[in-house]
């Protein structure tokens, strides 16, 4: 799987989201993602990750072995820059 495919699925599943995915090992199955989305407002880390996993439509159970996630609301992202 390519990083841009994962980015596309996340953007599709969570409208208004900015996402950057990188392939950690170059092997197409271990990825790192930074996801900035207004959908995360008021949600805990578990719920945020579940939202991202849901947008990947089952890829987590197959083509993606590992996806390391950092999640921010737009406000949190601005504050930590």
């Amino acid at each position, binding site marked *: 799987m390519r990083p841009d495919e994962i980015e596309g699925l996340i953007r599709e599943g969570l409208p208004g989201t900015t996402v950057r995915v990188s392939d950690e090992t170059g092997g197409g199955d271990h990825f790192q993602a930074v996801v900035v989305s207004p959908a995360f407002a008021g949600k805990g*880390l578990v719920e945020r*990750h579940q939202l991202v*996993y849901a947008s990947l439509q089952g890829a987590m159970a197959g083509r993606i072995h*590992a996806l390391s*996630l950092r999640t921010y609301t737009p406000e949190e992202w601005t504050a930590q820059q």
Partner: protein
Amino acid sequence: MPRDIMNEIRNEIAANKVLVYMKGTPTFPMCGFSAAIVEVLQEMGYPFKHVNILEDQEKREAIKAFSNWPTIPQVYVNGKFVGGCDIVRELHASGALDQLLKEAFAGADTTAAS
């Protein structure tokens, strides 16, 4: 009697203050993410139990459905799903994990081995 795996999971989560579903064991973790969680928990010095899902294919799939979480390792504290490796690391860095464990073990004897 057929195996009621969801009930098994519910019971073991309820019976242990800290439970880690992982690949391998704390001594021989079979995955870097499982190893990272063991390292954090051992560093914090609280006892925990583990379930090696590599020895139980049925549970390996069931735990993902149970928590609506597609990956392993998974950590449960005081009967509640805390998260996987990223979240445990993040909560550890912020001090929130320490707080959570402190509350879980409040009044309990933490010198007992896991």
